[in-house]
C-alpha cells in the first residue's frame, strides 16, 4: 500500500516537474543566469562600466549628479594633489598661464581706465567744480569724480536666508561705506516682512526694491534665499536678470546647505563667485564714439582744411606776385604790405608817371575789393621814369631822342637852337636829371645855323655901302640867323667868332674897292651887333674884289660879287658843351 502510494507520488512529482519545466522552465533558466550574473562581482563591474558613461552623459544636467559627484571629485583632487601635485600641475599648466594673464590684463585695464578717467577729469573746468565739492563734502577727489561719472555701480550684494533673515554671505565693491552687514540683512528682512504684512500683498509677491536718492536696493527672492543688491545710480532693467541668474545658480549649487541651514554660514563661501558676478560698475565715459562717423567728420574737416589752405595759398601766392610786381615797377615804392581785417593792405609811394597799380592788380587776378591800397605821390629818380618825365617836360621836337645815363640826359637829333636853349635851362631841374648833354643836337643846330648863315650874302648897291634894293629882308634874315647862332652858343656855352667880310665887284680900283668892302662889312656888323652877345666875337673886314663869288663881266654876276659874307669859327676849340644843374 505504502509502496504503491510512494510510486504514485513519485510519478506525480515527475509529472509536476515536467509540467513546471514546460510552464516556467525558460524563466527558471533566465533567473538562474541572472543570479549567477548578480553574484559575479567582476561581471557586475563590467555591466556598470558599460552603462555608466551613457548615464552620466544623459544626466549631465541633473543637479543631483553634480551634487553627488562633487564631493568625491573634490576629495580625489585633494588626495591627488597631496600625493603628487605634479600631474595636476601639468594638467592645469596650459590653462593657468592664460588665466593669470587674463586676470593681470583685467586688473591693468581697470587700473588704466581709472587712470584715464582721473587724467581726463583732472584739468577740466568740471574737475575744478568737483574739487570744490570734494573740499566741501570732505570726500576725496577720486570719490567725487567717480560719483559723477558713474552710470551705476553695484556696491554690495547680500545673500540672505529667507526664513531667518540671517546673512549667508556678503560681497562688496568700491569705496562705499559698509555698515554691519548682519544687521542690514536683518533689517532688510524685517522691512520686507513689514511691507508684506502691512499691505496684504498676494502670496508670492514681495518687496522688490527700495530707493533712497541715488541709492537703490534691488531684491530678488528665491525659494530659500534672497539676494539684495545695493546699487548706486541707475542700473538697467536687465540687471535683474543677472540677480535672478545668480540666485538660481546658488539654489542649484547650495540646495542642501540652504535646506539644512541652522545658522552655520561657512558653507556659503561657495556662493561668492555667483555674488561677485552681480557686482558691476558702469561709467558714463566708457562709451566710445562712433569711429566711422568720427573718421568721416575728420576727413571732411581735413578736406575743407586742404581746400581752405589751397585757396589761401593761391591767394597768398597771387598777392606776393602782385607785391613783387609793384616792387619791380619803376616809380613805385612799397612801404608796407600784409593782411589787415581780413583784407590785403598795401601802402607806399608812387610816381605819377609810374604804372597804375590797379592795372597790375587786374593782371594779378586778385579781387579789387580784397585789396586796400594807399599811395602817396613822389618823384622817382629812376632813369626810365626820369626820361619819361624829361620827355613830358621838354617836349622834344620830332626826330630828337632823349636818353638818360648816370643822371645825364642826352638829346640827339635835329633840334632848334631855341629848344636846345630852353632844354638846357629846364632839364637840370627835372627830378632824376643831374645834367643835360645836348652835344649831338647842338652841333646839328650850330651847323644848321652856320650853314644857313654862311649861305646868306646880303648884296649891296654898286659902289656904295648900302644894301641893294630888295636886300633888306636878306639882312633881316641874316641878323636873325646870327641871333639863332648866339642862342645856340648860349645853349652849348660856346663862343664863336664871326668874321663879317665885305666884298666888291672887280670894277674900280682896288684901292677904292677895299675900303668899300670894309664899309659894307661894317654896315652888316652894325646890323647884327644888336642881336649878338659876348658869346659871338664879331669882326668885320673887307677883301675888296679878291674873293668874288663869280668871275664874270656880266652885270648880274658883278651884282652877286657886291656882297657881305660871314665865316663862323668856334673859339677855344671845345667841341662838346654840357649844361649842368645850377
Amino acid at each position: 500500500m505504502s509502496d504503491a502510494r510512494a510510486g504514485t507520488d513519485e510519478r506525480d512529482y515527475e509529472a509536476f516537474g515536467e509540467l513546471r519545466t514546460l510552464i516556467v522552465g525558460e524563466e527558471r533558466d533566465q533567473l538562474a543566469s541572472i543570479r549567477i550574473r548578480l553574484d559575479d562581482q567582476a561581471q557586475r563591474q563590467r555591466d556598470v562600466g558599460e552603462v555608466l558613461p551613457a548615464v552620466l552623459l544623459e544626466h549631465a544636467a541633473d543637479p543631483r549628479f553634480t551634487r553627488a559627484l562633487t564631493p568625491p571629485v573634490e576629495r580625489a583632487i585633494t588626495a591627488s594633489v597631496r600625493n603628487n601635485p605634479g600631474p595636476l600641475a601639468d594638467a592645469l599648466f596650459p590653462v593657468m598661464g592664460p588665466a593669470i594673464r587674463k586676470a593681470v590684463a583685467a586688473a591693468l585695464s581697470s587700473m588704466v581706465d581709472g587712470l584715464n578717467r582721473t587724467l581726463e577729469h583732472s584739468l577740466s573746468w568740471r574737475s575744478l567744480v568737483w574739487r570744490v565739492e570734494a573740499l566741501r563734502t570732505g570726500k576725496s577727489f577720486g570719490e567725487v569724480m567717480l560719483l559723477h561719472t558713474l552710470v551705476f555701480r553695484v556696491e554690495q550684494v547680500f545673500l540672505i536666508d529667507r526664513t531667518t533673515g540671517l546673512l549667508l554671505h556678503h560681497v562688496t565693491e568700491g569705496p562705499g561705506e559698509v555698515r554691519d552687514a548682519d544687521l542690514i540683512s536683518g533689517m532688510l528682512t524685517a522691512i520686507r516682512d513689514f511691507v508684506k504684512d502691512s499691505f496684504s500683498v498676494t502670496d508670492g509677491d514681495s518687496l522688490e526694491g527700495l530707493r533712497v536718492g541715488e541709492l537703490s536696493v534691488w531684491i530678488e527672492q528665491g525659494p530659500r534665499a534672497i539676494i539684495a543688491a545695493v546699487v548706486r545710480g541707475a542700473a538697467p532693467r536687465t540687471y535683474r536678470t543677472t540677480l535672478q541668474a545668480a540666485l538660481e545658480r546658488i539654489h542649484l549649487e547650495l540646495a542642501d546647505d540652504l535646506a539644512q541651514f541652522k545658522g552655520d554660514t561657512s558653507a556659503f563661501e561657495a556662493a561668492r563667485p555667483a555674488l561677485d558676478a552681480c557686482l558691476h560698475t558702469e561709467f558714463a565715459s566708457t562709451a566710445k564714439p562712433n569711429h566711422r562717423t568720427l573718421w568721416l567728420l575728420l576727413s571732411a574737416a581735413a578736406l575743407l582744411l586742404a581746400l581752405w589752405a589751397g585757396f589761401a595759398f593761391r591767394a597768398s601766392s597771387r598777392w606776393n606776385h602782385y607785391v613783387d610786381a609793384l616792387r619791380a615797377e619803376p616809380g613805385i615804392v612799397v612801404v608796407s604790405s600784409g593782411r589787415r581785417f581780413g583784407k590785403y593792405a598795401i601802402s607806399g609811394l608812387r610816381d605819377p608817371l609810374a604804372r597804375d597799380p590797379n592795372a597790375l592788380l587786374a593782371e594779378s587776378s586778385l579781387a579789387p575789393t580784397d585789396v586796400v591800397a594807399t599811395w602817396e605821390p613822389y618823384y622817382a629818380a629812376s632813369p626810365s621814369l626820369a626820361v619819361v618825365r624829361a620827355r613830358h617836360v621838354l617836349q622834344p621836337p620830332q626826330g630828337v631822342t632823349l636818353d638818360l645815363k648816370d643822371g645825364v640826359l642826352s638829346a640827339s637829333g635835329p633840334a632848334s637852337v631855341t629848344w636846345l636853349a630852353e632844354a638846357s635851362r629846364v632839364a637840370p631841374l627835372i627830378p632824376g636829371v643831374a645834367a643835360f648833354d645836348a652835344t649831338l643836337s647842338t652841333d646839328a643846330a650850330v651847323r644848321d645855323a652856320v650853314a644857313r648863315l654862311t649861305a646868306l650874302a646880303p648884296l649891296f648897291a654898286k659902289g656904295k655901302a648900302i644894301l641893294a634894293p630888295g636886300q633888306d629882308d636878306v639882312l633881316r634874315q641874316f641878323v636873325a640867323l646870327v641871333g639863332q647862332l648866339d642862342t645856340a652858343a648860349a645853349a652849348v656855352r660856346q663862343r664863336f667868332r664871326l668874321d663879317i667880310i665885305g666884298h666888291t665887284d672887280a670894277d674900280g680900283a682896288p684901292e677904292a674897292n677895299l675900303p668899300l668892302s670894309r664899309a659894307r662889312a661894317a654896315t652888316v656888323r652894325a646890323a647884327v651887333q644888336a642881336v649878338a652877345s659876348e658869346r659871338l666875337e664879331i669882326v668885320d673886314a673887307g677883301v675888296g674884289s679878291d674873293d668874288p663869288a663869280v668871275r664874270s663881266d656880266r652885270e648880274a654876276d658883278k651884282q652877286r660879287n657886291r656882297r657881305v659874307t660871314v665865316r663862323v669859327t668856334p673859339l677855344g676849340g671845345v667841341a662838346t658843351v654840357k649844361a649842368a644843374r645850377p
Partner: protein
Amino acid sequence: MIQKKICMLGSFAVGKTSLVSRYVTSIFSDKYLSTVGVKVDKKTITVAEEEVTLVLWDLYGEDGFQTVQKSYLRGAAGYLLVVDGTRFETFAAARELQKMAAQVAGDVPFVLALNKADLAAEWQVDERALFEVADAGWRIVRTSAKTGLGVEEAFERVTRAMLEQQT
C-alpha cells in the same frame, strides 16, 4: 561662524529695548521700533567653546499683540520673553505671547526674563505663578536692565539651549 536669530518678546514697557541696549551697542535708532516695529542688533558671544553671533530682533511690544509681528518671529532660533516683575499683567501677556511664538517659530528654546528685579518692593509676580511655568519647562532668569543683573545670563542660557537643540 554660527548665527542665531533671537527675538525679544514682551508687553509694552517691560524693558526689552533696555535689556538689548544693556547687552549690545546698537547702530540703529530706537525709532525703528515705533515705525517698522522691530530693531535688529547683534552680539557675538562664546558659549560652550562655540562662537555664536546672536542677531537680536527687538520687537515692538503692545498690549494687543499685532499681527505684523508674527512674521518677525519666523525663523527665530530662540526668544526671550520679557516680563515686568512690577506689573503682573505683563506676565499673563507673556504666557499668551509664548503660545503665539510656539505657533510661529515652532518648538524653539526661550527664556523668561523677569525684568526690573531691582524694584523688589514693587514686585507683583509671585512665586506660585513662576513655579507653574517652571514646571512647564520654562527657563527663568531675573534681570535688571538698570543694574545689569542677569542680562548676560539670560542671553547665554537661551543660546546654550539653542546650540543643544541644534545638536
